[in-house]
């Protein structure tokens, strides 16, 4: 294909919904980097002030502004990959222009390296391979699943396979009923946000349905940026129509004609899978106008992010979609009344949306009863790190952590014992000691000062230095802090410095006092979840591993 001109690219995108990101990607893909000339052209084409656009482009980690750009390897140096030699792999690829990237969401596999639009994995530069997302193993506990219940069926990722394995039964059922019936069913199922915040999905949809303003919008948050989380990619790659059907149900319930899937940059193959699935759905009357002959109109667009953890925060995500600087928004107002383009918007996680077709098809009670004891439903846990069988496991909420670690995932590596796990990816900080005996449900985990969140659990065995682990975590937060609010912008930096010993010598008392003060102020005053969550890492480090801190301050390795 001949190189497309600036004007051709702009004409292609400027009248599309949420055009900035795809247009920037179009230039990035065409040239391998985003030149000054490209930025000028986009600024003119979309009428975005030049300085603002330039600032926005620099915000995203993955937009290259110089050669070799996109084709240079990006090597994951996330927490788990550090355990596997990510930094060493990066070093070995430096001659090819390699740079580091934060957790790329493949912690159950070898170290990911992204080159152009391909995600490779491997442990050395010679052995990098390009392969599909692993399929979750059959449920080791033999319990009834929800989102994984059909994912292993042959051809499930094709429209034909999806429909033949029960797909779109939920939507058909819903279209025969009313939007209120869908909202009621979702509410009664007690489904709550699976992206981390745990807000009741039925309540959110009701709020969007009731809010004035059109067109309303459904946004699928597929920015899965939380370190140690890789469940959404598995769902999208192996069951893309479940996500699309879930969004269509959300659209029906709320009255939204427009939807976006905001997909993180690091999942290039997933973008192609989703685009193909959307195309097939559209061609078969399952998206667009008059869906299944019901008169329902809903269309759906994939928008690819460009490397910013904060864009998983819904305000940032919406700003990013709208082509603005991706700072979080001040709340209230909330997206349910003032979301995309200030219109009522439901922002839901992939797993949440993928659950809905099953819930509608099988009934609210069915889903609610999947949990253990008082708990409703299931949760996919992304398990990684020092454990025999890392991977995604759909658990009944309330499952003991030790059951997951030992019975389902095979226990620690030979000769090792578990020292700590993270919760909620990184956002819940560490659990260690006695608190490894929790059950995986929020009432229990919250009583230990943490939370289940998006369900990422990274395991550290007794060979690991937990101060280093905390440092890698805090460095991630510092790297991803958007820079808007002071406590997070400065606090993550100062904490990182105190964990890598780059500050002037502090006494233990000074060190602890500074860390406590920063942490307490960040938790109380930060403008969004990032700054509030980051101190969990240091708090839990101080709580469970004081002797390792002492060693760190004494300069011991």
């Amino acid at each position: 294909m001949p190189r497309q001109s600036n004007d051709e690219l702009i004409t292609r995108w400027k009248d599309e919904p949420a055009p900035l990101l795809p247009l920037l990607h179009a230039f990035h893909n065409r040239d391998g980097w985003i030149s000054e000339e490209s930025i000028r052209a986009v600024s003119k084409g979309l009428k975005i002030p030049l300085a603002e656009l330039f600032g926005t482009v620099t915000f995203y980690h993955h937009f290259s502004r110089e050669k070799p750009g996109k084709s240079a390897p990006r090597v994951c140096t996330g927490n788990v990959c550090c355990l596997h030699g990510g930094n060493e792999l990066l070093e070995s690829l430096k001659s090819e222009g390699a740079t580091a990237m934060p957790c790329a969401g493949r912690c159950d596999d070898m170290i990911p390296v992204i080159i152009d639009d391909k995600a490779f994995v491997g442990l050395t530069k010679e052995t990098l391979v390009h392969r599909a997302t692993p399929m979750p193993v059959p449920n080791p506990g033999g319990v009834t699943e929800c989102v994984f219940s059909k994912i292993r069926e042959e051809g499930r990722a094709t429209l034909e396979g999806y429909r033949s394995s029960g797909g779109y039964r939920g939507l058909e059922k819903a279209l025969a009923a009313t939007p209120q019936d869908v909202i009621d069913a979702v509410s009664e199922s007690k489904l709550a946000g699976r992206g981390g915040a745990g807000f009741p999905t039925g309540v959110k949809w009701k709020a969007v349905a009731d809010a004035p303003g059109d067109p309303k919008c459904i946004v699928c948050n597929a920015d899965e940026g939380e370190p140690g989380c890789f469940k959404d990619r598995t769902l999208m790659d192996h069951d893309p129509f479940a996500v699309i059907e879930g969004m269509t149900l959300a659209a029906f319930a709320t009255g939204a004609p427009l939807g976006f899937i905001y997909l993180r940059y690091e999942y290039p193959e997933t973008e192609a899978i989703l685009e193909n699935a959307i195309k097939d759905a559209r061609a078969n009357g399952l998206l667009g106008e008059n869906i299944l002959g019901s008169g329902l109109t809903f269309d759906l667009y994939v928008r690819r992010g460009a490397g910013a953890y904060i864009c998983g925060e819904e305000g940032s995500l919406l700003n990013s979609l709208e082509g603005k600087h991706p700072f979080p928004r001040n709340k209230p107002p909330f997206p349910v009344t003032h979301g995309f383009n200030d219109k009522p918007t439901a922002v839901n996680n992939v797993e949440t949306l993928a659950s809905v077709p099953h819930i509608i098809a099988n009934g609210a009670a069915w889903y609610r009863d999947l949990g253990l004891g008082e708990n409703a439903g299931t949760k996919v846990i992304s398990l990684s790190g020092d454990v025999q069988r890392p991977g995604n496991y759909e658990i009944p909420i309330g499952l003991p952590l030790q059951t997951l670690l030992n019975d389902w995932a095979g226990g620690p590596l030979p000769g090792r014992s578990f020292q700590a796990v993270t919760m909620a990816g990184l956002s819940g900080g560490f659990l260690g000691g006695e608190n490894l005996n929790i059950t995986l449900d929020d009432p229990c985990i919250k009583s230990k000062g943490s939370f289940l969140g998006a369900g990422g659990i990274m395991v550290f065995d007794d060979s690991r230095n937990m101060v280093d682990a905390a440092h890698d975590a805090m460095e991630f937060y510092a790297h991803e802090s958007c820079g808007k609010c002071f406590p997070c912008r400065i606090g993550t930096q100062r904490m990182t410095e105190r964990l890598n010993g780059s500050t002037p010598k502090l006494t233990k008392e000074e060190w602890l006092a500074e860390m406590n003060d920063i942490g307490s102020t960040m938790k109380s005053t930060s403008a969004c979840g990032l700054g509030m969550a980051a101190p969990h890492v240091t708090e839990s480090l101080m709580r469970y591993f004081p002797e390792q801190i002492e060693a760190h301050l004494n300069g011991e390795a």
Partner: protein
Amino acid sequence: MISDLDAQKTAKALILTLDGEEVAFEPGETIYEVAERHRREIPTLCYDERLEAFGACRLCIVEVEGIRNPVASCTTKAAEGMIVKTKTDTIEKHRKTLLELVASENRSVDVNQLSGYASQELKILVDRYDARTGRFAGKKSGTSNTKDKNPFILRDYDNCISCYRCVRVCAEREGDYAINVMNRGFNTQIITEFNNDLRDSECTFCGQCVQTCPTGALGDRKALRDSDTEGEIRKTRTICPYCGVGCSVDMLSKGDKIVGVQPAMDGPANEGALCIKGQFAFDFIQNADRLKKPMIRREDGELHECEWEEALDFAAAGFAKVRDKFGRHSVYGIASGRAPHEAAYTMQKYIRATYGTNYIDNCSRA
């Protein structure tokens, strides 16, 4: 029928509790606005009343009963029945920590007052909260731009605290969108597009960014020439001498020397705005070319300096001579559109009262 006005009168006033005191508020007001009206002196660094509240510095946090974390009062709307505490030990402790953190990222919190209108805000708060503790030492944020040689705006980002007031005032008030923020987190840096000099950007050198900067990171380079000049800074409220908009300014002087200009935030025509001329083109006043003595044209055909008496007598005699020779319609007066009323008034009165004609005009026809 009840008119709107009556309805307003009978409608129940909105009330919240502010530090134990019941106070009324208007719909749409933020907690910060209500508290400021009641003289609570809530600290802020990212707030400029002319700008949309941004919620970056978090110093304005207050406790609201029923909400777990403190809220930023600048971005939180007041609500009926809210119980707000603006100053608890916990809140004050967080504020001090925040100020210690901010102080730790800058080269210095002490900057010359001539830097700009808001330049002392950080210094004042750091002192108020006794936050010069040297805690939280570490890397400094922001890098001063030493390559931009423009003569007006100092870009000393070593002292930048990323409050984005400059970015916001440029966009929201000036509408120029010349500056923005590059990178993110601790690496944020205020820049123009492609990090060019201001001259090569959309900047119009209105100086609004300078005047809203709370740390002196952006400074008035022309005023700062007089940093070391002896004398207290005196401010005199007057009106800009350039176009017809009539912006209110405060002229800054030290002794008999004019050292700078700052916009008057309460000026009715400009509400704190100025342009490059009003902001920076003031030093013609004490320029060496100024006429210092009267001059008259002598026999050699050249203008020579002379004393006032001689010049005034000469001027008056000249007009008397013309009038006597050619009649009263031979003298014409042109008043200035630049000088004050008193100049124009006396000029027209001089012509009308001396010659009995209306042979008077001003420079508006060109």
